[in-house]
């Protein structure tokens, strides 16, 4: 290593605390399923699921930036890894989920139903 290194132990344990806390919050909501979150939806996904997805994003950020030490890398490396991933994943999800929703509607409105 050419550059000087300072020990990051404190930062590591802080991030560990954050990740554990988020997991506990997720499990808590997953068991309780509060109705005002569970039964209201936004963009055909209920608010509880939105909460889980956002919390997952926060966890992913901390793992990549702190544990994988992305925050210490050069900007060019950082964005050549992160931007293609974010773009492609959102793109793929958008296409597949829209298509799946369409197929669901077709089955749902057709004369032949999913029946017994």
């Amino acid at each position, binding site marked *: *290593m050419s550059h000087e*290194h300072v*020990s*990051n*132990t404190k930062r*590591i*344990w802080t991030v*560990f605390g954050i*990740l*554990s806390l988020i*997991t*506990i919050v*997720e*499990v808590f909501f*997953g*068991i309780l*399923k509060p109705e005002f979150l*569970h*039964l209201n939806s936004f963009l055909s996904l*209920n608010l509880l*699921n939105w909460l*889980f*997805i956002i*919390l*997952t994003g926060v*966890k*992913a950020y901390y*793992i*990549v930036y*702190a*544990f*994988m*030490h992305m925050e210490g*890398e*050069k900007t*060019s*490396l950082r964005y*050549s*890894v992160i931007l*293609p*991933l974010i773009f*492609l*994943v959102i793109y*793929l*999800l958008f296409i*597949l*989920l829209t*298509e*799946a*929703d369409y*197929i*669901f509607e077709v*089955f*749902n409105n057709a004369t032949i139903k*999913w*029946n*017994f």
Partner: protein
Amino acid sequence: MDKTVVSTGTEGKTWGGGNQPIKASYGKMMMWFFIVSDALTFSGFLAAYGFSRFKFIDAWPIADEVFTHIPFYHEPAPMIYVAFMTFVLIMSSVTMVLAVDAGHELKKNKVIGYMFLTIIGGLIFVGSQAWEWGTFIKGDYGAIQTKGGNILQFGEYVEKDGEQVFKRVALRDFAIIADHTDRSQHESKNGIWFMSEGSLPSYTVEEVIYGLEANSDILVRTQLINEEGEKTILSRSESVKQIKDNGKAVIEGANLHVNEYGTPLFADFFFFITGFHGFHVFSGIVINIIIFFNVIIGTYERRKNYEMVEKVGLYWHFVDLVWVFVFTVFYLV
């Protein structure tokens, strides 16, 4: 170490990056790009799961009702066990990053200790995963599959804290065994040698019907999710009618063809994605063990550089990262 060209004569000009234009060694940069491609693979799988789920959005199994087991504890307790697994993996990520950190300071013994803990954490995780698969494959309540491939489950209303709640009932608790209808499992030694069949379910559809008729409290629950986000429960007369008219096979547990929890796709994706992730954890453990012994024999000590630990660390954190998403997609959402 030999370096061919150190000075390119372009310092300060357009290129000027020398051997490490983005200040990461070749190995580390390639580990990052491997991780990018592997992350895209997992995204593809998880997006496919999302596709199937949105396609059957009104009939998908509810995870809280599928993964409810904890070793040595027999009441349903959703989430707890998988939260434990998540915690183990996060913890092993922490010991891994501590090992990397100790490596930067060239503290060999600390690296050895932390890598050992990381390997143990990985083994606990894979073991837990195996147990989870085992309970999922074995199943617990059993169900009837209809001609159309739908799953009908059983349960009854019981009083709990002054409220009527629907409680699942297992086939073994109500099916009445009629011994004259018993068919023994075909084995290749008893007939055509090249034909055999998997183990038969413990009960036949007729036995379940006898049991259903004898127990007037038991109702059928279908796959369809109602507006309250719960599975639809049929009336008593409708329950008996559906089982009699459409019941085709008894399903216990899960495999790639059928599963008692709902649509077979759910089990297929579960086996495929958690299996692929589990395989990553397994290979991570193997690579960790190799590097662990390299540290012990002093390879990196002589090199005065623990970057190899950092590279396996990247892989190990990536495995943890994937699990964070698998956890959300399979158990929370």
